């Protein structure tokens, strides 16, 4: 008893072929979209690679690019088969490959499911990489003369301006590092000497933040220095002042950006999976409808199409038996070989 059989006449077959051809072209566009999303994601990771200590994992974007290309290729082939399906001569050329093609599509769908899952799970890895990378970035902010780190200051400043954030978790992270290079500190000055000696590591720490932490929406000119000293500024209370500098941490800001990007890509890949499954079902119906024509010479005859030749349970048990016989043949061959040797 075939699984979900449907009767087809010529008109229905033609309609199915045309509809499926159109669907395959939508799937090609979806494949192109996945490819471009992969490239976009790769570029975004590269752009802020310094913030992630240059060791972020490019697995997800690379997989997306590969999957996008595969989708384009498979769907273009499927579209071509559909286009030729109404001409018996052309279709007979593709007929033998169809079974393998459908199996390929099935495994491709499994791959898509895997990619979609990765899009959601790899967010944890991105979070950890960002946390580590940002703490290094803040530490290397002042090293504008060290090769390999000269642009860290600029990158971090631009990130803080663009993402409206300050520091790793909040602005107090800047109080714990020396973010002014020693080249610009007058070591003969008493104030400077006192500050440097006031902590174990001999760092010039202050309760100030870089200019990129400033919030343009503040009604008063930005207060960057002596942030915790209320008396240093007129009419200023650091506990109630909210708009002066960005209060959000860059870890949170960057992570929410990347996680929303990855979640959207994951959702889109799920849509692509549904589209691919519909394509597969349609092609199966079309191929079975064309194979079971009552009179092969008369194109206008009736035929029947189905999803599976037998019921789901029977197909499954068939598959298992096939796998078992494959295994047994190997064993038999293995048994024959030692016999031949002896």
């Amino acid at each position, binding site marked *: 008893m075939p699984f979900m059989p449907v009767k087809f006449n010529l008109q229905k077959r033609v309609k199915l072929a045309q509809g499926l051809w159109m669907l395959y072209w939508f799937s090609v566009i979806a494949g192109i979209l996945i490819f471009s999303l992969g490239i976009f994601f790769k570029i975004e990771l590269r752009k802020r690679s310094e913030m992630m200590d240059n060791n972020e994992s490019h697995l997800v974007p690379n997989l997306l690019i590969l999957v996008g290309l595969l989708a384009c290729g498979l769907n273009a082939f499927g579209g071509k088969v559909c286009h030729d399906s109404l001409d018996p001569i052309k279709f007979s050329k593709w007929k033998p490959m169809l079974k393998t093609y459908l199996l390929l599509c099935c495994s491709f769908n499994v791959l898509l499911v895997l990619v979609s899952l990765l899009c959601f799970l790899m967010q944890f890895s991105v979070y950890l990489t960002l946390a580590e990378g940002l703490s290094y970035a803040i530490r290397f902010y002042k090293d*504008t*003369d060290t090769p390999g780190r*000269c642009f860290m*200051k*600029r990158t971090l*400043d*631009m990130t803080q*301006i663009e993402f409206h954030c300050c520091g790793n978790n909040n602005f107090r992270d800047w109080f714990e590092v020396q*973010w*002014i*290079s020693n*080249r*610009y*500190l*007058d070591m003969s*000055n008493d104030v400077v000497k006192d500050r440097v000696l006031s902590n174990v590591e001999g760092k010039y720490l202050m309760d100030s933040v*870089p*200019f*990129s932490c*400033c919030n*343009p*929406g*503040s*009604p*008063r*000119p*930005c207060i*960057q220095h002596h942030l915790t000293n209320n008396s240093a*500024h*007129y*009419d200023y209370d650091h506990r109630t002042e909210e708009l002066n500098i960005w209060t959000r941490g860059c870890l949170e800001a960057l992570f929410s950006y990347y996680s929303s990007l990855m979640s959207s890509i994951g959702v889109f890949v799920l849509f692509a999976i549904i589209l691919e499954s519909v394509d597969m079902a349609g092609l199966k119906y079309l191929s079975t409808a064309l194979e079971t024509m009552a009179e092969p010479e008369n194109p206008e005859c009736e035929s029947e199409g189905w999803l599976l030749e037998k019921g789901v349970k029977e197909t499954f048990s068939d598959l298992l038996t096939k796998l078992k016989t494959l295994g047994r043949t190997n064993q038999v061959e293995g048994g024959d070989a030692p016999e031949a040797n002896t």
Partner: protein
Amino acid sequence: MALLPVKFDLKKRVKLAQTVWFMYWFAVLAGVLVLSMGLFFKIELRKRSELMDNNESHFLPNLLILMGLIACSINVFGGKVCYDSLDPEKFAKWKPMLKTYLVFCVGFNALLLVTALLCFLMRIPMQFTLAEGLRNGMRYYKDTDTPGRCYMKRTLDLMQIEFRCCGNDNYRDWFEIQWVSNRYLDFSSKEVRDRIGSNVDGQYLMDGVPFSCCNPSSPRPCIQAQMTNNSAHYSYDHYTEDLNVWKRGCRDALLSYYGGMMSTIGALVILVTMLEAGVTVGMQYVHSSLSNLANPEDPESESEGWLLEKTVKETFTDIMDKMKSMGKGSKVEEGEAAVETVS
């Protein structure tokens, strides 16, 4: 003697009609492009309207939007006519309107050319609007408590950050105005009182700039205050310090941004004009070739298509005569009406 006559048989006519139909669809896309460019330009002007003193001229983007809409509609109509041109019955329906349509197209093309010219010329009034608007913008920077100006500070800061500029002509413009509000100045402090007393207008002037002037590429943390005082900062010489704050003036930066946008739009409008001229010429050939079939009943007969029925000079004198006779006709009508009223 027709201008640029071309012989057509059925096959050639069909090919011409198909090509012109195709070109009309490109022209529709071009019309959509002009419309979207007009919208984009309008949005960009609105975004920075505060910096232009809220009296920037929206004439050019409105004109572009109008031209885009008209282009879309006449090109859709032209495409429909081309599509029907191979079916004599359907074409007979459109035939009477074609002459007016083609004259309208020529007029529209001239208008497109004028629009393109305007795109290049409107840069000059924009310069003046920007200069005035930015000067006022800087003056109102501190008025974050005055209704209508509360967001000037934020707009100006965001603009300086985005366009990498400082002040109107350069950063020294900030030295000449008070950009710190009186609400945040301690008038009991001697230093503040001295500064205010030191100039005629009683303004708190200082040689400092807002944080948005800072250049992130500078190797040292930004020096915003006491910029002309070398001894206030270690190893600092304001004459040689290049990367500390943005050197460019915002008027320059904004003008080059808007100027570039307008030049690009102008160049694209010129390309669209050329496309429109092409489709008009094609339509004229389709119309003329279908109007003088050697044998009207036989669609496969030969015909001749041309650009103008007579030569340029003759067509021009014809138009002048027509206009004169129209003028005379209305004069005669007026004369008759006057005679009637008198008698």
